[in-house]
């Protein structure tokens, strides 16, 4: 769930944000659908140099009866403490992970590595080379995704989100090549994001090394016209079409 100007949005390649509804309403629907975990990202916070909106996080979490991960604007351990005590299980770091990797180490030390997730947002640059981007995909850090992933594991991250900007909202399937490359070099769980179109994509991502999968557009849009309709596979569908044979 991406939060932008207090509303819930979904992007394509981290751009073209389309309003998909009210976050509180979406959380209530996702509750009923029994999602395994919900990641809430405030995509404006870092760009606007703003701290996490604790009050807003509390409000959303009060209606969320599943594990929650929050990302957006986190720069200090104290913020993490307040976010976790609001009822959030994990924090997701992106810009701070690049700028101050020591923060990852400190969070892991104080709250356990299982509570700190690093989102590796990456895309091909002008010359076709994959690079890590921050600030909602706006700023190229010049870092290589694999090198950065290893650094984050070493710093104490408990989990990585491998987020393909090029595939975001594309419905073209996960970036299996990168999933295989990164997961093969790590011993911490890695979650694939970006490009999911069907349940078969989940299975492929896991077969290529992802520990888990995440999706946005697939759960909020109905194709072909990107009409907003929140959906989520039933436990039975997941069991027969994804888990079986893994």
């Amino acid at each position, binding site marked *: 769930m991406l939060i932008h100007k207090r509303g819930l949005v979904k992007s394509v390649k981290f751009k073209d944000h389309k309003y998909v509804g009210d976050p509180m309403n979406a959380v209530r629907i996702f509750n009923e659908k029994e999602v395994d975990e919900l990641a809430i990202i405030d995509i404006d916070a870092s760009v606007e140099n703003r701290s996490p909106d604790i009050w807003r996080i509390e409000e959303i979490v009060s209606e969320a009866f599943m594990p929650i991960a929050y990302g957006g604007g986190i720069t200090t351990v104290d913020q993490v403490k307040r976010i*976790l005590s609001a009822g959030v299980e994990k924090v997701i770091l992106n810009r701070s992970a690049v700028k101050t990797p020591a923060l990852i180490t400190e969070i892991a030390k104080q709250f356990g590595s299982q509570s700190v997730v690093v989102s590796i947002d990456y895309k091909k640059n002008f010359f076709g080379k994959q690079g890590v981007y921050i600030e909602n995909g706006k700023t190229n850090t010049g870092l290589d995704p694999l090198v950065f992933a290893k650094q984050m594991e070493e710093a104490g991250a408990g989990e990585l989100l491998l987020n393909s900007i090029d595939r975001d909202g594309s419905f073209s399937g996960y970036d299996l090549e990168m999933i295989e490359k990164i997961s093969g070099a790590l011993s911490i769980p890695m979650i694939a994001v970006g490009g999911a179109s069907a349940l078969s994509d989940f299975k492929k991502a896991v077969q290529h090394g992802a520990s888990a999968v995440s999706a946005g557009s697939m759960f909020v849009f109905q194709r072909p016209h990107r009409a907003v309709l929140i959906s989520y596979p039933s436990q039975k569908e997941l069991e027969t079409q994804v888990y079986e044979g893994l």
Partner: protein
Amino acid sequence: MLVIADYGVGNLASVKNMLKKAGFESVLASDAVTIESASKIILPGIGAFDHCMQQFNASGLREVVTRKVMEDKTPLLGICVGLQMLMENSEEGIEPGLGWFAGKTIKFKKDKIGELKIPHMGWTNVRLEKKSDLTENLGDQPRFYFVHSYHVQPENKSDELLSANYGYDFTAAISRDNIYGAQFHPEKSHKYGMKILENFARL
């Protein structure tokens, strides 16, 4: 009144929120007077075992909680480290536990879980080991959200209420008389968790 013991650790808001969603009011209590008036007590816990025990011992709540549970037979539900506190001790620390259940808390055995990672984190199916009011009407294939590196090992098999598998079978919940404990987080486990909290509130 359903009271959530607030001794300075744990994610109390989530428990309260889910109880509210299930239709039950609750209060967070950090004072003995409120605990004294409790009809039910929830004992949360998160993080390091020693830290939880030390905070609980220093909070001034231990005496009143113990008296309520032992003498008045007030139902108590320990959650996560709150469950581990009910045992005699834990491999994670040196502080003694409350010792209301015979047995201890041990770390997941690395040699028995193979490629699986510690902490055990995520959704896992549970199996009923006995009948109990707490686990009434859980439905088919109940599953719960777990985050833990340690699990309890009750000495008496009859204390085991739910079991789960993570490389090997471990105890996911215990119960005896008016005392209950869950390793998972009911407050984060959708309808299954809500059912557990609702059953507890109705005891």
